[in-house]
C-alpha cells in the first residue's frame, strides 16, 4: 500500500507542485477574476439592462465560466508531457502514479472548483450591489417599470434556497454534475495529446456526440415502433396507438435512478481512473 499511496509523499508532491506552479495558478485565477468582473461591468454599463443581473443570467455566467475555464485549465494540467525534458521530471519523481494524479486532480479539479466558485461569488456579489444602486426603484420608476420593481439578489452557490441558489435551481444541478465528467475528458485528453490537446479533445467529444446521435436516430429508432422518448426521462418510450391511447414502455424506476446516479457521480471517477492507467503507461 505504501508503494501506491503514502500520505507523507502526497503532501510532498502537493507542496512541490504548489511552489513550482503557483505563478501560473495565480495568473490563471487572476485572469478569471478580470474576465468575470469585466463581463459584469460590460453587462451593467454597456447593456444598461437590469435583467442581465437576474438569477438565471447570473447562473448562466457561472456555468459558462465554469465550463470554459475548467476545460481550458484541465487541458494544461499535463503540460509536463509537452516536452521530453519535462516528462522526464514528472515520471522520475519518486512518487506513485496515484499520488501524482491526486496532486493534479487536487489543484486542477478541487482547488479550481473552490477558487472559481469563490471568485464568481465575490465578483457577482459586488456586481449585484452595483446593479442595486444603478437600477434602484427610482431609476426603474423613471424608466417606466411598474411595480413590483426588479430586485437584485445574489445567485449564490452556497444557498439551499432554490430561488437564490445556482446549484439547486431548475436543472442546474445536472449542469454542475455534467461539468466534472466533461472536465475529466479534458484531463484525459491532456494526457493523450501532448500538443493542442484542447482542440483535439473538443473534436473527439463532438465526434462521440455525433456517433451517439447517429446511432440513436439511424439505428436505434428505426428498429423500434414509431414513438418518442418521454420528455423527462430516457427510461420510457411512448408509442401512440391508433385509438388515441398511448402505449408506454418503461424501465423500472430503480434502473433510471441507477443510470442517473452513475451519470452524475461515477463517470468522472471512471475517467480519472483511466488517467491513472494512462500515467502508468506513459514513457519518454
Amino acid at each position, binding site marked *: 500500500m*505504501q*508503494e501506491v499511496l*503514502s500520505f507523507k*509523499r502526497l503532501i*510532498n508532491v502537493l*507542496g*512541490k507542485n504548489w*511552489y*513550482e506552479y503557483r*505563478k501560473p495558478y495565480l495568473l490563471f485565477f487572476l485572469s478569471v477574476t478580470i474576465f468575470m468582473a469585466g463581463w459584469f461591468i460590460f453587462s451593467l454599463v454597456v447593456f444598461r439592462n437590469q435583467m442581465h443581473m437576474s438569477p438565471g443570467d447570473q447562473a448562466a455566467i457561472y456555468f459558462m465560466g465554469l465550463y470554459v475555464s475548467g476545460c481550458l485549465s484541465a487541458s494544461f494540467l499535463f503540460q509536463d508531457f509537452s*516536452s*521530453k*525534458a*519535462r516528462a*522526464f*521530471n514528472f*515520471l*522520475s*519523481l*519518486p*512518487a*506513485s*502514479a496515484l*499520488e501524482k494524479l491526486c496532486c493534479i486532480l487536487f489543484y486542477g479539479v478541487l482547488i479550481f472548483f473552490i477558487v472559481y466558485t469563490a471568485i464568481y461569488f465575490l465578483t457577482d456579489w459586488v456586481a449585484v450591489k452595483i446593479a442595486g444602486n444603478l437600477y434602484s426603484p427610482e431609476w426603474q420608476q423613471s424608466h417606466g417599470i411598474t411595480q413590483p420593481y426588479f430586485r437584485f439578489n445574489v445567485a449564490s452557490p452556497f444557498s439551499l434556497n432554490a430561488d437564490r441558489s445556482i446549484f439547486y435551481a431548475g436543472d442546474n444541478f445536472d449542469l454542475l454534475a455534467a461539468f466534472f465528467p466533461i472536465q475529466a475528458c479534458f484531463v484525459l485528453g491532456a494526457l493523450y495529446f501532448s500538443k493542442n490537446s484542447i482542440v483535439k479533445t473538443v473534436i473527439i467529444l463532438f465526434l462521440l456526440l455525433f456517433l451517439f446521435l447517429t446511432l440513436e436516430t439511424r439505428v436505434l429508432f428505426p428498429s423500434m415502433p414509431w414513438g418518442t422518448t418521454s420528455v423527462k426521462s430516457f427510461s420510457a418510450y411512448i408509442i401512440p396507438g391508433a385509438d388515441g391511447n398511448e402505449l408506454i414502455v418503461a424501465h423500472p424506476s430503480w434502473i433510471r435512478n441507477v443510470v442517473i446516479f452513475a451519470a452524475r457521480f461515477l463517470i468522472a471517477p471512471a475517467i480519472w481512473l483511466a488517467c491513472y492507467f494512462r500515467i*502508468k*503507461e506513459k*514513457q*519518454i
Partner: protein
Amino acid sequence: MVRIENLTCGYGKKIVFRDLNLNFRNGTIYGLLGKNGTGKTTLLNTIAGLRFPESGRLEVMKYAPSKRQPTFLEDIFFIPEEFQLPPLSIAQYQRYYSTFYPKFNSYEFNDYLKLFEISIGDKLQELSYGQRKKVLVSFGLAANTSLLLLDEPTNGLDIMGKSQVRKIIAGAFTDQKCIIVSSHQVKDLENLIDHIVIIDETGVILNQSLADIGEKLSFKISFDPGDLEWSIYHEPILRGHAIVAMNTDGIENKIDLELLYKATVSKPKLLNSIFND
C-alpha cells in the same frame, strides 16, 4: 545491481537494441560508450523505468523499473542530457525535491555547489546551461542513491567544468553505489571510470574492467613501422603511429580510451576473442 537479460528495446517498429545481456554491479563506475543512435540513452531510460522494454528481463535493485515504484525511484537518480529545471531558487529546489530522497545530504549538496562556485541563493532559471547541469550533478550526488545514471554529463561544460565534474563524481563514489556514465566523448571519461561497456547496433561489443584491459592490451606511440605488423589497431599521428597491441610484458599501462574505442569498433570480434580466451 542491474541485471539485463535478452533485453529488446525500441520505438514502435524501430528496434534500438535486441537481446542485450549486461550486468552492472555496485562499487563500480561504468562508462557506457557507443556511436550516436546505438541506444545508450534508451538503455539508461529503460533502466530508470522511463521506457518499457519490448521483451527480455530487466531487474534493477530487485525491482522491475517499468513499475516505477516510489521506493525504486527514490534510490535511483538520472541526470539526462536534456533536462529542464523548475522556476525555483537552488535553495527552494533543494527544499522541495530533497524530501523525495531519504538519503539526501544537505551538507554534501552545499559542498558540491561550493566546489562548482555556485551560490545556493541563485535562481535556477538565471543560471547558464552548464551551471544548471552542475546543480543537477550536485543534487544527484548528494541524493546518495544506490544507482546514479548520467547521460552525457560533460556536454555543455567548459574544460574546467568537465574536470570538476569528473573530480566530484569520483570523490562522491562509494562501494555501495553504482554509477553508469554514458558518453560519446570518450576523453571525458578518462580518470573516472573503472569499467567500460561499448555497444553498437549488434549489441555489447566490449564489456571489461579497465584493469583487465590494461593487463591484456598495451597502448603506445610508435615511430617504428615494424610495430604495425603485430598491432591490433593503429592509426597515424604526427611522425608515427598510435598503436593498440597485446600486452606481452604483463606490466599494466595507461589506457587510451579513445584508441580502445576505435579499436573495438573497427575490430569487435578480435577484441572479444582476446578477452574471452
